[in-house]
């Protein structure tokens, strides 16, 4: 599939997965690929009622070589060819509540409500309300995108909470529909549910690593997202897969010494040991990861995209570029990426 067609499937891509699997990285890489295709992409990081935004929100900027912590205002991260760009912002329930009150003619009260800890009151009285307000804001941006409003993004990537919390987050408007009999909250919740359940407007991307526990949890999350939140699943991204090296199956020092001698090299015992131990680890990991990718495909019939493991302890612009290339190839082929 052409990347551009991939991105024209919908306007909001909700990216979620188990903690530590690289949701934020995948959001950044996808947005960067979209920008390369000339699209105006916006990454929205959301905090749920109990989240603290710092310091995680600096990770996305870091990927783009910046240090700023994301805030309410949009920040341009990269400008690509033919008008493509990546912008990013963070949304929090308290600011969403203030905006909501402003929009509903309660401007005078809003500051007081927030300063008296009314968010806690509202959250307690109506759980899911803060989350729904954040989703309502996303819906408002999606409407602007649909209308082609000036300055509006064409594609929104929602860096959603980690899997367990994502279900609760995305279920919030459904819960409110049941709880609220009328009024602005109910209509707001209905509009958010309409967006979440319309695949032309919104779909979800699941992120996992090719390891046993993350794969199991991804399969579980996928079912819950469809059943409870009514969201169409678009793809599963297998992140941080070790590139497959054609290593010999049998690693014995005698055979390796002989091969090295053929190239005129005498390997010291410590060198042989290193080659063998490192080779065995890689073979084991490659094998285990391949098995998990197969299991994921069997248990979750979704297109798989793949991003390679980066041999670095940090992800910055270099890794972003490599990963974006890899994602482009993966989208183009819907098949495992071959790396140099």
């Amino acid at each position, binding site marked *: 599939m052409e990347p551009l067609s991939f991105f024209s499937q919908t306007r909001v891509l909700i990216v979620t997965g188990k903690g530590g699997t690289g949701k934020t990285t995948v959001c950044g890489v996808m947005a960067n690929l979209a920008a390369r295709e000339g699209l105006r992409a916006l990454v929205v990081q959301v905090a749920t009622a*109990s989240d603290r935004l710092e310091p995680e929100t600096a990770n996305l900027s870091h990927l783009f070589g910046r240090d700023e912590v994301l805030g309410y205002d949009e920040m341009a991260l990269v400008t690509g060819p033919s008008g493509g760009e990546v912008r990013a912002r963070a949304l929090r329930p308290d600011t969403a509540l203030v905006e909501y009150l402003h929009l509903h003619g309660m401007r005078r009260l809003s500051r007081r409500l927030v300063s008296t800890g009314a968010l806690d009151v509202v959250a307690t009285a109506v759980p*899911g309300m803060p989350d729904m307000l954040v989703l309502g804001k996303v819906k408002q941006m999606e409407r602007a995108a649909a209308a082609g409003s000036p300055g509006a993004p064409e594609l929104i990537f929602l860096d959603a909470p980690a899997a367990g919390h994502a279900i609760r987050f995305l279920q919030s408007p459904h819960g409110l529909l049941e709880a609220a009999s009328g009024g*602005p909250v109910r209509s707001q919740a209905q509009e958010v549910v309409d967006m979440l359940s319309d695949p032309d407007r919104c779909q979800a991307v699941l992120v996992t690593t090719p390891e046993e*526990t993350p794969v199991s949890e991804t399969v579980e999350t996928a079912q819950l997202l469809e059943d409870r939140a009514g969201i169409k699943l678009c793809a599963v991204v297998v992140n941080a897969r070790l590139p497959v090296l054609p290593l010999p199956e049998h690693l014995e020092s005698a055979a*390796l010494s002989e091969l090295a001698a053929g*190239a005129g090299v005498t390997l010291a015992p410590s060198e042989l040991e290193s080659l063998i131990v490192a080779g065995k680890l890689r073979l084991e990991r490659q094998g285990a990861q391949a098995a998990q990718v197969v299991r994921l495909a069997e248990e979750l019939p979704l297109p798989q995209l793949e991003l390679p493991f980066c041999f670095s302890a940090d992800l910055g612009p270099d890794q972003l570029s490599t990963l974006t290339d890899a994602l482009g190839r993966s989208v183009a082929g819907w098949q495992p990426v071959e790396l140099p």
Partner: protein
Amino acid sequence: MTMPPQPADTEGTGSSSPGGPDVVVCVGPGGVGKTTTSAALALQGAKRGRRACVVTIDPARRLADALGTGHLGNEPHLVNPPAGSSGWPGELWAVMLDAQGTFDHLVDRYATSGAQAEAILSNPVYRNISAALSGTQEYMAVEKLYELEESGRWDLIIVDTPPARHALDFMEAPRHLMRLLDNRVFRLLMAPTKVGLRALEVGTQVLLRTVAKVAGGEVVADTVEFFTEFEGMEDGFRARAKRADELLHSRKTEFALVCSPRRDTVEEALYLSAQLAKEGLEATRVVVNRCYPRYAPLSAGAQNRLADGPLAPLVANLEQLELVSAKEEEQLVRVSAALPKAVLYRVPFLAREVAELEALEEVACYLETEEARE
């Protein structure tokens, strides 16, 4: 269900070791193996002859996987050594936190009558607070810890916590509900029982109307009812929360920081450690999980001449893994420098998934050896 052992002490102090059990609270970002580390620390305790219990509040129920016990209930469950193993001299217990069940239990305990407990338990706002209020899960984990500590059945309790972004709530948990109860708006909401809704000051009426407008009138009615019902129970809750808070700050309680050797998780872990410091607490142990091994490098000559022969993939592999471990080393140095007093443990990347007791025993072994500081 097997009943937990009764304390062996004859003094009747209710504690199995002087001053109560040792407590280790594991904090760290998501996805770094915090649950596994918690379980491994408890297993280590059992191997040292202690009666150890691990509490997990992770909603993904990974501890159950790691212990191979399937679903764990809200009561501690004795974990048997794997078949064919020589076992351990102590005991290993595990419990999966059921926040709702724990909260219900507290209400039952502090209610002045069965009718009061029933009224609260069936109030929609109570269901909301116990299921969805931020920090409730953390509060209940602290409550569970306190309950286990108070029982005197264990001499080592390990507590797993939710991922980083929530760990602050964990520290603040015992105070969170108290703060909510102290909130001016709620206090005013409770006032109607005393002075009648009409006597409320104008500002409060406006606030109530706003909440009603945003969330619906029945929500306000339920809230008022909840706080009315809750009256008389606050003192019990408050006193208990205070004791739990004291337990978290006691000298018997240690904090273990868990991370992986990557920039982002190290940053989050150091952020958490700074938050602990604000509480006057410090991490006494740092566990760095999933470290790539360090390898002796090839000589430059060998590397060059083998770069494109039949050994090329093996050479490339060694080079890639060495690069990762060198980058990881920088992160370890950073952690070490930021937390000079903590004991540092390095757990290597294990080839197999830690989903069985044998694998957990392997992890526990790495938690025996302190990493030398350079």
